[in-house]
């Protein structure tokens, strides 16, 4: 596995608040990397800076570099829209648009200029299959996305992200608002998707990280405390704080 994303001495400030401190790591291709750590440690912040969703938060300033297959994504010549297309994102709360299921999935491709009905149909089907939702919704694609259950909505959001053919998929606690059955489904889905996509997921749930990911990064107060193969990190952590955290002594 080679590193697709290289993060190099990244510092991020919200105004004067130092949210990420000198973060460096390599995120490998076609694998699942999990970010764990107590609330407020900067997991979401780092995730959002990978597709520059932080740009939208006024007062954010960044130092250091993030390279995705060699391109500095904060460089001048970067096309932010294409970056976001290539680096898809799924949020904590399912957030489908108040449109039909079909239109939700077709939203991205349409943005990027695909208008042919046939092409769109293909993409919608492929993406819904990819998100393991096709069989449940194929007969009522015109129904409002809001009529789906929470778990289905979240899978729809994944399908929507897949529809623009991303290479990387960021998932920010994508299961924490869901019930266990839906969570399980989405974990399985992630396992499948990693064959084709590079996945970075934030989770509160150490068991989830242990179950699902290949690499795990443990954050504390904006710093990377430990970064290792998931198995190693959970069985034999190097840092005392990591051990305390995963053994439930805090967090």
């Amino acid at each position, binding site marked *: 596995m080679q590193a697709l994303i290289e993060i190099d001495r990244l510092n991020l400030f919200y105004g004067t608040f130092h949210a990420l401190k000198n973060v460096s790591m390599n995120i490998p291709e076609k694998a699942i990397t999990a970010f764990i750590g107590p609330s407020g440690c900067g997991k979401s912040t780092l995730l959002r800076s990978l597709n520059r969703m932080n740009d939208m938060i*006024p007062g954010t300033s960044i130092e250091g570099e993030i390279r995705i297959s060699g391109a500095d994504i904060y460089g001048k010549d970067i096309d932010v829209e294409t970056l976001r297309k290539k680096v898809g994102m799924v949020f904590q709360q399912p957030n489908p648009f108040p449109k039909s299921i079909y239109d939700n999935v077709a939203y991205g491709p349409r*943005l990027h200029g695909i208008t042919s009905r046939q092409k769109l149909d293909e993409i919608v089907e492929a993406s819904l299959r990819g998100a393991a939702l096709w069989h449940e919704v194929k007969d009522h694609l015109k129904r409002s996305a809001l009529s789906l259950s929470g778990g289905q909505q979240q899978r729809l959001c994944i399908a929507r992200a897949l529809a623009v053919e991303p290479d990387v998929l960021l998932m920010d606690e994508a299961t924490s608002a869901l019930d266990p059955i839906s969570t399980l489904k989405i974990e399985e889905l992630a396992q499948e998707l990693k064959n084709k996509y590079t996945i970075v997921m934030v989770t509160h749930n150490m068991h989830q990280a242990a179950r699902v990911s290949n690499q795990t990064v443990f954050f504390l107060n904006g710093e990377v405390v430990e970064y290792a193969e998931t198995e190693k990190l959970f069985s034999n952590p190097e840092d005392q704080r990591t051990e305390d955290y995963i053994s439930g002594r805090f967090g």
Partner: protein
Amino acid sequence: MNRVKNRIFTIAVWTIASCVILFVFGLLFLILQRGLPSLTWDFIFGLPSEIEEGGGIGPALFNSFYMLIISMAIAIPLGMAAGIYLAEFAPDNKWIGFVRICVEGLASVPSIIFGLFGIALFVEMFQLGLTIIGGAVSLAFLNLPVITRVTEEAIRAVPGELRNASFALGATHLQTIRRVLIPSAVNGIVTGICLAAGRAFGESAVIILTAGVTTSGVMWDFNLLSPGETLAVHLWYVQSEAIVPDAQEISQKAAAVLLFLVLAINVVFRIPLWVRERRFR
């Protein structure tokens, strides 16, 4: 004690609300029943008369619609664009506070002053005389602030997560606004447009000054430089100056027609929303 207060509160709300409702219905009923029963097509499409009884309101009615459409065609894009700016692009600083106060200030400009301003602009500066276009633009100015503020509020109310979802898919700001924000905010925006349309339909002071109290006297006159008496102005005219013996009756019928049309506009604008709401939950 709390229960008693709550009981009193509930009774008070119901009483006040029923009084207001009864009052509103009474008002609407009063206006409609004075005018509607004697309404005829001849009246609605006929030409007005100064001497004989039985004059109609045709050209004024046409002008009302014509001017409404033109003024809305100006006020909606401008107002929505300004509202979108305030909600989406504007940094949160002093200048924006200033813009917002300007918008609200503009909402409090008395219509007579818009009229005087319209005269200064169209009659004196551009030398157009009393014209439909002058009236329509002045009317648009009058309605700009309402549409602006309502658009801003409606767009602000769209949950941030939808906006994020769109950006995360690689949408540009414009695409996000066009495809997600406006469709989600459309309910509020339509309320604003209905309020503005009602106001435009009922406004007289501005139009008397800028578009005159005459029509060109023919029914379908699309010339923008024709004089543009609207139904509300005609209503004012028959109520305050006309000599025709049935002035009273004309004004009652005209008021009923006006009210009826405002109702119709409200409904027409809302039907697509209702249909949409039906489909989505």
